């Protein structure tokens, strides 16, 4: 096995403002894209999420992708959803992932298969994301399987376990309670849905602080740079995403070929805003299909160099 502890975990514990990125595995059996994106991201982010068949479209597995990221010198964050596997398969995959050197795990519910390219599939959802967090933590400490059976002390997978939360989904008042459940289940870090509505996020963070959750988990605000007005408008239609009208108007008012520049500016401004909000421990930049822009965004946000 490689390094004992997660690098991301250590950085957050040391109080660094963390930056994570995202790599989308391909719809085929090849790793060149993953290696390329890892090379782009590894110097400017502290961890790279590997999505797990996102939007229910079949892709190379997040665990296999994590092995490619490790080989390319990155710090993988495996995403695992509850949609496709029951507790037996999930635990088996977690043992396997840890044995291959993965140390970070993001536990998600998973998009419903009706959004993807296999709408006829059965869904599993044996566990939900809160239960998955608990199961993953329990594997490491106290070192038991979900059924309570012990794992040999020297063979326990001790993942740095995180979860997601969406401050923009409804009911708004329920979101912090749900976050509290994830934290109680053992989520050590949280990556949020993409933030465009900063005042609403700030209100949510106020509630998070009132509940004392920012002291129990590391909250990484989600940033999703938009390449164009069309991309931003599309995001505004995704369930659970909120893009305020003025932001749409701002992007629309920029001539097309300058829209990518504007998208970078919006992302940088959002990061700077987030850094001013008490309790925000970092940012998670989701630039799928626009990975090459991440180094510039991180640099312009004043977050370089990354701590070693």
């Amino acid at each position: 096995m490689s390094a004992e502890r997660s690098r991301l975990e250590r950085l957050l514990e040391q109080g660094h403002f963390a930056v994570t990125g995202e790599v989308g595995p391909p719809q085929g059996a090849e790793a060149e894209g993953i290696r390329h994106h890892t090379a782009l991201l590894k110097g400017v982010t502290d961890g790279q999420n590997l999505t797990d068949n996102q939007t229910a479209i079949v892709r190379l597995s997040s665990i296999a992708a994590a092995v490619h990221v490790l080989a390319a010198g990155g710090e993988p964050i495996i995403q695992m959803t509850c949609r496709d596997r029951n507790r037996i398969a999930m635990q088996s995959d977690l043992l396997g992932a840890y044995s291959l050197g993965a140390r970070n795990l993001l536990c998600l519910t998973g998009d419903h298969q009706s959004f993807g390219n296999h709408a006829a599939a059965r869904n599993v959802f044996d566990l939900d994301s809160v239960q998955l967090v608990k199961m993953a933590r329990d594997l490491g400490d106290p070192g038991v399987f979900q059924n309570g059976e012990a794992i040999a002390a020297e063979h326990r997978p001790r993942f740095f376990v995180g979860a997601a939360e969406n401050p923009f989904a409804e009911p708004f008042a329920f979101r912090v309670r749900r976050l509290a459940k994830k934290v109680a289940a053992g989520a050590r870090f949280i990556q949020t849905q993409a933030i465009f509505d900063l005042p609403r996020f700030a209100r949510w963070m106020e509630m998070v602080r009132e509940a004392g959750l920012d002291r129990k988990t590391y909250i990484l605000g989600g940033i999703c740079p938009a390449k164009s007005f069309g991309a931003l408008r599309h995001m505004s239609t995704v369930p659970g995403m909120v893009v305020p009208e003025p932001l749409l108007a701002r992007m629309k008012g920029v001539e097309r070929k300058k829209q990518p520049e504007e998208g970078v500016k919006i992302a940088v401004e959002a990061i700077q805003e987030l850094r001013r909000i008490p309790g925000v421990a970092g940012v998670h930049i989701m630039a799928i299909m626009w990975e090459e822009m991440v180094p510039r965004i991180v640099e312009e946000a004043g977050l370089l160099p990354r701590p070693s």
Partner: protein
Amino acid sequence: MIVCERKPLPAILENLAGRRRAVIAGCSECVTVCHAGGEKEVALLRDLLLLARPDLELGTIVLTRQCDGEFLEALDALAGEADCLISMACGVGAQFLAERYPHTWVFPAVDTRFGGGARQPGVWEERCGFCGDCVLHLTGGICPIIRCSKSLLNGPCGGSQQGKCEIDEAIECAWQKIHDRLEGLGRLDLLDVVLPAKDWSRARDGGPRKLVREDVAL
């Protein structure tokens, strides 16, 4: 029918903690037929609850159908005076009550077990998995979705032994039964057809279901 089974009395009493005026609502459909929540069971539950909680004020009613909005009005007057409703219908009935009385606590007195039928008095067996895409014409009238423990569509797994399922000797192997029946009907050829991966979007996997039929709509 929807086969239900009454919850243990302590579980029902637990839900009544801190409450005084309740209405036990039975149903004249499935739960009457499977002796879980018809007139007789409503009266029995009333007696049992009063033995344990003499302070309770209990109303009783047996609705024609709890799963049909038009029959719920009969409960309105009683419900208005109660601080909770105990539904002895299936989960559908209990939810219809909760929808009709948004400010009244509703809880179930039965567990909704399965879609099945009575084999003999006191014995009910599961027969339908509500998958939304019936395959009985391909399997000799025996459902592999719900009667095979693995919902296999192309024959028995390696655990079928002497007509029994590997998970429990008390369970018949659905595929043994399908085989035997098709043999009797002279249609073993149906077993050679490779059935493709099923479209589960018409089952619960596709999300909560709704059926709209314009031909019977008002």
